[in-house]
């Protein structure tokens, strides 16, 4: 039993089955990403001044990843064209490069870009406390220049100041131990206040506390967060510096300039995780879903590259069929590339 039009086109449509299928599938993908992008627009338009961050992502890395995807798109077409010309070794080469590019893209994303975000700490300041933090926010300066105000202070979390109920101290100690944190009594009020910071590394440099730990700390019974101490991001370290009015081209990590924020002045704080703000929510959702597509593409291309039946070995039996399959996965791959072409400016540049 053989389904018709698997390899050759049906005359009245001019398409073979899988090609028709992939275009239908891509139509639904357009609607899927369309839904996500319209959510992006909806949330961004609704965001108040200061709540939509700019320039937090690493532009050169993002641009590099864009280039990687574009290159892989070129190589996928070349792989297909090679098959059409029945040049098998060229096909293996181009397809191999495409796979590597896809994998590289994922590695950059998962091993570098995302983890960096999770280390970062940001706190939105309550409206009525914004004035107190003028030295980190520089809103007077921004107002003079006609720029939107800042409401967030960010950087690396170095210390958390807590007040602990002596009766529940045991639970706190267990928690600190579990998270490999050190507690030292605060000099002002040795009885209750504790300042905890993570152990220093070999070179004696302070690594900082993972922001998630601060959130968990708040859930420990009897513990109340008093303040955060950070190594500030460049914009908060020197808010009046005109350099900071615009996003930097090259990413600049947090400085060693210390900053202190009182918990009671904070509306919401977290690491730069999805829950941090609408921006990161959309950023992680779209890039995550896009990443899943890249992963799928890589796996399928690998399947057609490996010398197995249904994969590259098909060349001997029915090269046209293999070419069709590669064309189809190519279409998918270009679509993934195409989504990224929008993602890059939207999240990295604007």
């Amino acid at each position, binding site marked *: *039993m*053989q*389904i*018709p*039009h*698997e390899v050759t086109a*049906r005359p*009245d*449509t001019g*398409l073979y*089955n*899988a090609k*028709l*299928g*992939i275009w*239908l*599938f891509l*139509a*639904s*993908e357009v*609607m*899927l*990403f*369309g*839904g*996500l992008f*319209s*959510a992006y627009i*909806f*949330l961004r338009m*609704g*965001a108040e001044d200061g*709540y939509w961050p700019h320039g937090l992502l690493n532009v050169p890395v993002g641009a590099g990843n864009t280039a990687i995807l574009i290159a892989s798109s070129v190589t996928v077409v070349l792989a297909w064209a090679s098959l059409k010309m029945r040049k098998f070794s060229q096909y293996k080469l181009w397809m191999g490069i495409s796979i590597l590019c896809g994998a590289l893209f994922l590695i950059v994303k998962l091993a570098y870009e995302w983890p960096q975000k999770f280390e970062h700490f940001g706190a*939105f300041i309550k409206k009525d406390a914004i004035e107190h933090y003028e030295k980190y926010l520089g809103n007077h300066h921004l107002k003079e220049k006609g720029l939107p105000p800042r409401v967030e202070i960010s950087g690396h979390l170095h210390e958390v100041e807590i007040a602990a109920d002596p009766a529940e101290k045991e639970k706190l100690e267990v928690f600190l131990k579990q998270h490999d944190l050190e507690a030292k009594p605060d000099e002002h009020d040795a009885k209750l206040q504790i300042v905890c910071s993570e152990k220093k590394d070999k070179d004696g440099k302070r690594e900082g506390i993972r922001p998630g730990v601060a959130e968990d700390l708040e*859930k420990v019974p009897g513990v109340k967060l008093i303040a955060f101490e950070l190594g500030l991001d460049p914009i908060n370290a020197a808010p009046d510096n005109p350099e900071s009015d615009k996003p930097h081209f090259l990413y600049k990590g947090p400085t060693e300039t210390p900053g202190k924020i009182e918990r009671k002045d904070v509306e*919401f704080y*977290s690491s730069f*995780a*999805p*829950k*941090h*703000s*609408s921006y*990161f*929510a*959309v950023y*992680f*959702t779209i890039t995550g879903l896009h990443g899943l597509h890249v992963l*799928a*593409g890589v*796996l*399928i291309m690998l*399947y*057609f590259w490996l010398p197995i*039946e*249904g994969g590259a070995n098909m060349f001997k039996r029915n090269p046209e*069929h293999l070419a069709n*399959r590669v064309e*189809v*996965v190519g279409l998918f791959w270009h679509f993934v590339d195409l989504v990224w072409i929008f993602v890059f400016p939207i999240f990295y540049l604007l």
Partner: protein
Amino acid sequence: MSTAALTHAPDDNAHDDHHHDPGFWQKWVFSTDHKMIGIQYGTTGLAFLMFGFMLMMVMRWQLAHPGEAVPYIGGLLQAIFGSSAFQPDAKGIPGVLTADGYNSFGAMHGTIMVFFGIVPVAFAAFGNFVVPLQIGAIDMTFPRINMASFWCFFISCIFMCVSFFVPGGAAKSGWTSYPPLSGIADSGALNHFFMNGQTLWVTGMVFNITASLLGSVNFIATIIQLRAPGMTWMRLPFFVWAQFVTAFLLLLAFPPLEAAGVMQLMDRAFGTSFFMPTGLIVNGAATHWSGGGSPILWQHLFWFLAHPEVYVLILPGIGMVAEIIACNTRKPLYGYKAMVGAIFVLGFLSFIVWAHHMYMTGMGAKVSGFFQVTTVMISVPSVILVTALMLSLWGGSIRFTMPMLFATAFLPMFGIGGLTGIPLAFNAVDLYLHDTYYVIGHFHYVVAPGTIFAIFAGVYHWYPKATGRMLNEFLGRLHFWGSLIFINGIFFPMFLQGMAGVHRRWFDGGVTYEQIIKPVIHWNNFMSVSAFLLGAAQIPFIINFCWSIWNGRKASDNPWDATTVEWDTPTPPPHGNFTKEITVHRGPYEYSVPGADKDFTPQTEAPKSDKAHLAAPLVAAPAH
């Protein structure tokens, strides 16, 4: 992922099928045969229809007897669903539905009926079983994707079923799952971050949507690529057209809800605030969301799917009814081409009416006006479809076989449901009727005595093809008259209650609202009794369905003397469907052709002479 399946779909598996019979697993479970997948979808879907109905019967008991334990099975229910859904009454008798339990059952009734009952049966089951046969194809274009679709659906079923048994019970924010309610439901420290009703609901929906997408790609590709020689577009049976448009609705409307589902999953599992606005105060305490999201965004994305979805619920039904009417009036459909046009217009318009569910969210004058206009417009193609079906009866020689009984009853029932949609379309009027039982009555008339009747009609019509046996007529008639009478007994009073201001999702049947409920409270009991009797009327059907598989009267290959191609196969059709080359020579409904020797001329029958050929004006349309 699905591209993987798309690209290495069919070819290789095909060869081995030739040589040996597939084993048990391959034949019955991991089958790639469209007929088996259709049957799998059908039985799962029917089971869910029954389950959804049972949930509703429990709810109807509560509406009629608020605070009283469910008789006979109360203890059992409490043992099964746990103490979040059922509590003992004052005297300690177990089995009183709680408010949370009621909301949970209501949300799951809606979800199950729509996404796990009607769509799997009307679209996936009948579509899978009938469409390839009707267009003369040996299978779907992508048989393995077809199988993947079913198993993806099956996974979603598991999520939904499991969700009843996690602490806190199944999702309880309505089938619409509006945030922030759905965001705060079952969340927080006391609940598992994943194993809670609402999260399982969203996850299940994501799988369900994926299954539908895989299915719809397959349907469209099959109808475009695998029509038999001579099966031109205008020779397609109307059912195939209905499935074609439905598949497009699913393909393009579902992804935005998938996006929304992913976002809600993010909100629930990773604490994002896509749909959570700033500054929520729940039970007097501030919440732990960053805020900045919009609950309205969910509504837009949800209804962008859910309006086209309601046509997904009805179009396959209309398609089946059209087939059955043509066959049992023994004459061609009236206005076949106009119907095809209308169904396309309907599909198209259904994408731009969604906000008529959101008139009271505070949309602006222009937006609201726009949706009001499109909503009124969409009734026009519906009227064309109904009119064509009604006029098709004229001049027929109507045989009231079982399928025909249900198909004829479908017409006025759908009429009532559709007509009551008209006042809702006008936004000023909808502000009065919104969320009342008038709306509940409106859509149940369309889906219950509408689509469910169409499904029943379809089951009676194609059961012989699938099993080789006829269903019993006597039990069938019992089923029909019971269903027709009692279903109206449930749903007609809803309009009276709705006009009187009774609102939906009232767990106590409205007794809190003394003023509003007083004149209409007596209906509660009447409707509930009707619901139980409707349940009883399904028993003959269930018996009939199961008993006839082995004991029914043997069916011939073409028991209804029908013209369409599916009847040109052996009964039941073998793997590969046809035993001969199929070529189509004429339109789908060549019944009672003047001068022909019998009152039906199958599509595949070669023209005997030029004269017979000329006498088939419906074939006139050239290939597309």
